[in-house]
């Protein structure tokens, strides 16, 4: 899920040598029978495992991370929202999401296709056990269903991230409807813009067959823009439009179970290796780069948040440590396959104070009620990560650099750091605007027609009983 990657001599060698004798034998635009011979079961195994890990990030990990932070009376509502969003997103994905995100759009010549794909694969038409999807290496393919599945797990977790911003005060079914609309009008277009391209064996003959931001050259290895900025800004818009919780600022709302939050954070970390290292689409040396970067950036960010708290409050809290870990994961996401372990550590060290500032000072100043800090952690961390990607990808800093897929076979290009950072900034702005405006319109529509906010009485009683008729605990 990234563009123009320099696989490095060894990594590239690995994948090539495993399937073919030498670069000289590489096939341009292989047909489906040829693609069938270019599949490696090690890649397939890795990508299926990665998909399992990303699903685990949503359920139970994210659900628990969020759920532990709300009050007992709203616990189940959070678990239910996350669980059901995953279900609905999966259905929408196989229905029209995959097609809208990962097929070439109509109007290739006029450029409209660069914002959204077509409808040729709706309901997975034509996708079988014998069709294939490209990776980032020439002549390396995956069974297409594997790619459909992996991307599905991303479409499942992204909308689920949003709900943290207005947890404890939203009606269930209208929220589900919002998510269907949001996926369609916000997520699929952005995924298409950032991640869609014709693949390394085909791009050279169809150089415009790529999403708008991909074509512009913006880098997003595993979803800084598509997932985190996208969900983070939608969360902020949602929490502003839905309004503050009853009693906000007056009643104490300490997390009901830090233990659940810790379990969730730990499993998020564990699962995030599928998210980031899986985004390499192969099991090779670059996969391991993405993996180790994800590991150490998280470690650095958790430590750094603890140090900030120590100096600010005199005590490092567990919630702080795991919040830092998540901030580190968010920040490294777009950079994971491009950075080096040392620049990843630097990113981790920096992102925590930044998010801390938003989560404590800025939020308290501006008095918006972003219940679980979706904006402060995911959007801010995501923006930082997306822009820093332009820096850390530089080979001069030990980064993986970028690869030119407009030639065949793909080869390394000169790295222009300033230019790359500017592309990253543009990608961030496009995402903020598209998602911010799109989300606002959709929240408005759903709220007008069905109402997003429960009654005050229902909110006081807690959403578990009022929306779902159950209680989380009966000890």
């Amino acid at each position: 899920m990234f563009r123009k990657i320099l696989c490095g001599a060894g990594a590239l060698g690995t994948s090539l040598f495993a399937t073919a004798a030498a670069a000289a034998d590489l096939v341009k635009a292989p047909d489906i029978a040829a693609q069938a011979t270019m599949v490696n079961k090690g890649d397939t195994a890795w990508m299926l495992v990665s998909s399992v890990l990303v699903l685990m990030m949503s359920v139970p990990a994210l659900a628990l991370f969020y759920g532990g932070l709300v009050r007992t009376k709203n616990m189940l509502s959070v678990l239910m929202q996350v669980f059901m969003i995953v279900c609905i997103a999966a259905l929408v994905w196989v229905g029209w999401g995959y097609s809208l995100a990962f097929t070439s759009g109509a109007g290739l010549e006029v450029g409209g296709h660069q914002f959204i794909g077509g409808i040729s694969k709706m309901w997975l038409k034509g996708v079988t056990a014998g069709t294939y999807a490209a990776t980032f290496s020439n002549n390396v393919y995956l069974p297409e269903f594997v790619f459909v599945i992996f991307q599905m797990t991303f479409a499942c977790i992204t909308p689920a991230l949003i709900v943290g911003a207005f947890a404890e005060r939203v009606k269930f079914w209208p929220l589900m409807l919002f998510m269907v609309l949001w996926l369609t009008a916000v997520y699929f277009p952005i995924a298409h813009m950032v991640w869609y391209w014709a693949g390394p064996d085909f791009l050279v003959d169809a150089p415009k067959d790529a999403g708008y931001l991909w074509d512009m050259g913006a880098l997003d290895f595993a979803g800084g823009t598509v997932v985190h900025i996208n969900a983070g800004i939608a969360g902020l818009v949602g929490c502003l439009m839905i309004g503050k919780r009853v009693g906000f600022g007056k009643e104490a709302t300490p997390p009901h179970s830090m233990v659940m939050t810790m379990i969730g954070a730990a499993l998020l970390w564990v699962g995030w290796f599928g998210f980031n290292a899986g985004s390499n689409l192969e099991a090779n040396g670059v996969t391991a780069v993405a993996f180790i970067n994800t590991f150490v950036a998280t470690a650095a960010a958790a430590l750094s948040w603890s140090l900030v708290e120590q100096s600010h409050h005199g005590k490092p809290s567990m919630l702080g440590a795991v919040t830092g870990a998540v901030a580190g994961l968010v920040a490294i996401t777009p950079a994971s396959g491009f950075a080096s372990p040392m620049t990843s550590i630097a990113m981790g060290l920096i992102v925590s104070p930044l998010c801390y500032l938003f989560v404590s000072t800025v939020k308290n100043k501006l008095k918006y009620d972003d219940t679980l800090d979706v904006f402060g952690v995911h959007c801010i961390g995501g923006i930082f990560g997306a822009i820093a990607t332009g820096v850390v990808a530089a080979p001069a800093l030990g980064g993986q650099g970028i690869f030119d897929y407009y030639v065949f076979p793909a080869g390394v290009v000169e790295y222009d750091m300033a230019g790359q950072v500017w592309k990253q900034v543009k990608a961030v702005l496009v995402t903020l605007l598209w998602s911010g405006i799109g989300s606002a319109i959709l929240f408005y529509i759903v709220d007008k027609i069905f109402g997003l906010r429960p009654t005050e009485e229902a909110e006081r009683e807690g959403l578990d009983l009022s929306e779902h008729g159950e209680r989380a605990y009966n000890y």
Partner: protein
Amino acid sequence: MGPAGTQGIGMKFIIAIIKPFKLDEVREALGAIGIAGMTVSEVKGFGRQKGQTEIYRGAEYSTNMLPKVKIEIAASDDLAPQVVETIQQVASTEAIGDGKIFVLDLASATRIRTGETGDTAL
């Protein structure tokens, strides 16, 4: 029996059952009239107020047991009526299930730390 009794300084033991979300408000209001301490516990209340019906798979559980908060306050006879009035006013939402205030006579009170007794112990 205790010295308080013999000293003749009357005290009351006030038990109030209120809706949980009213606790903070009540505490503040009592602080304002000079109540320095109280003891709070979570209880389940059974009364006219109907509880939510809960459903687990096929089975419905409709319980009248509702979460309430119990406040216990020892106060001197002088302060007691004011305590009752304050709680009644602050905790009332005029909806069914707001709760009750019970007042009992207190024979003696002792502060564990110092052994003081009577209303100076409160």
